[in-house]
């Protein structure tokens, strides 16, 4: 087909609105406000204040990913079983939250956890019932942010896992049973290794937004609880230091691309041979 020129608008658009902006971010990262070349912005990031935030972001994102995996895997595994009836409806019920506005999801948690919220007031009433002081606060702390993240990203873990587990060839499982593997051996030696690609895509889909979020920490963590995303937002919208903000964005991108390529390589090599 002689249709190459059709791609011209696409090429121009991607150049203008994807490549150039990212190049601008990179340019700002290595320049001062006056436009002189510098490594200052990168060096500034080494300040313990920022490193702490980076580590906190990494930690909470990893923890969130782990919890999503531990909670989501069994759910996906059960859903993927052939004899599970009404499966279609249940899978759709996992899809709907994925498409729901995530501010709305976060806001929904906010209404439950804020001091007059259903969960908080129920917890406090239970405590009072047992004679304690019912003034527990569930919002604006680490736990609230973690819960909010798990709540937001859990479907993104379940769906890829479900897809990879339900694509699993039933006969491969039978072959393992036939060769003498009992149920747990079938799972450990066949089902789990074959679901590793699903695990990787689930982990990516949870980890990536978890480490970049600033909305969840802002709404559920309060002003004091800062994550990497908050730092970037702050630099652009409040402090106005675009150069430093760009440097942090670049660091975030490199970090993500790096971790994903490591995961991909690990996935390719070890995808099967974990056990």
């Amino acid at each position, binding site marked *: *087909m*002689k*249709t*190459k*020129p*059709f*791609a*011209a*608008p*696409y090429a121009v*658009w*991607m150049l203008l*609105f*994807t490549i*150039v*902006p*990212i190049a*601008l*971010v990179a340019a700002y990262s290595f320049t001062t406000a006056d436009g002189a070349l510098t490594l200052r912005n990168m060096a500034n990031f080494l300040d313990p204040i920022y490193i702490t935030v980076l580590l906190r972001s990494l930690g909470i994102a990893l923890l969130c990913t782990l919890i999503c995996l531990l*909670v989501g895997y*069994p*759910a996906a595994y*059960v*859903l993927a079983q052939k004899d*599970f009836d009404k499966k279609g409806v*249940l899978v*759709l019920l*996992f899809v*709907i*939250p994925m*498409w*729901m*506005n995530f*501010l*709305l999801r976060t*806001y*929904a*948690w*906010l*209404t*439950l956890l*804020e001091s007059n*919220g259903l969960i908080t*007031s129920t917890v406090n009433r239970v405590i009072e019932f047992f004679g304690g002081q019912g003034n527990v606060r569930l919002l604006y702390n680490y736990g609230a942010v973690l819960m909010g993240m798990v709540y937001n990203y*859990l479907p993104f873990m379940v769906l890829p896992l479900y897809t990879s587990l339900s694509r699993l060839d039933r006969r491969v499982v039978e072959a393992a049973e036939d060769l003498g593997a009992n149920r747990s051996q079938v799972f450990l030696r066949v089902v789990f290794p074959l679901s590793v690609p699903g695990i990787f895509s689930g982990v990516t889909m949870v980890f990536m*937004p978890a480490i*970049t979020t*600033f*909305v969840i920490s*802002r*709404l559920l963590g309060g002003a004091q609880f800062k994550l990497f*995303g908050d730092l*970037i937002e702050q630099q*652009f919208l409040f402090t106005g230091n*675009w150069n430093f903000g*760009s440097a942090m964005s670049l660091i*975030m*991108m490199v970090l993500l*691309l790096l971790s*994903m390529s490591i995961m991909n390589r690990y996935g390719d090599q070890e995808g099967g041979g974990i056990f």
Partner: protein
Amino acid sequence: MKSAGFFKRGYVYLVLAFLYMPILTLIVFSFNASKSRAVWGGFTLDWYRALFQNSEILNALYVTLAVALLAAVTATFIGTLGAIGMFSMKNGPKSLLLAAANLSMLTPDIVIGISLMILFLFANLPLGFGTMLLAHVSFNVPYVLFSVLPRLKQMNGSAYEAALDLGATHWQAIRKIVLPEIMPGILTGFILAFTLSLDDFVISFFTTSEVQNLSILVYSMARRGIHPTINALSTLMFVAIVALLLLVNRKSSILER
């Protein structure tokens, strides 16, 4: 055997309960006459009435829908043409163009947001409706591209050549043979782009100033504190997205047939 099934089923329902409890609470309390978030004070539609009298909210709704529709149409156009164009390319230039789309999809929303903000301010474009629209088109294009490309690959390559052989011009062959073949992919891409636009917060947040869409409005209202009007708004948004999804589900199952 029976009890194992019971536990498995129970576990799935438990996870679903975790996912839906906050939403359902929110919906229930959007009809609550009392302002409390824990006590039921009788049924009311007051918050919905308040919602539709609030010009700020109505304006945000208008912005959301207008941006989503315009961005989806533009992105579908650019993305579809891009896919058709790339399909006839050699591997080298093609992979370069694909890499751009991949880069866009791998870049975190917050970085897309700030990078576009830098671009717009750098180019002296005042942030507002127009810049938000440009941003939405940008993040939508790769999704359309990746919805259309597989359809093109599935297409029987000789069909296009057969059309030429039978006397069609290039343009006729594309219009009468290629386009109908890839139409399901184009539709999927359009719907995907539309929903992504409706849903977006982060990128919109950085690429506009006064003009707000619903996500930004919910964010700023939520930061000021909880108000039953947001419950009502959220309920409506939830119902809208579920309706849209069910529609898409039915549509795609019809298309598959």
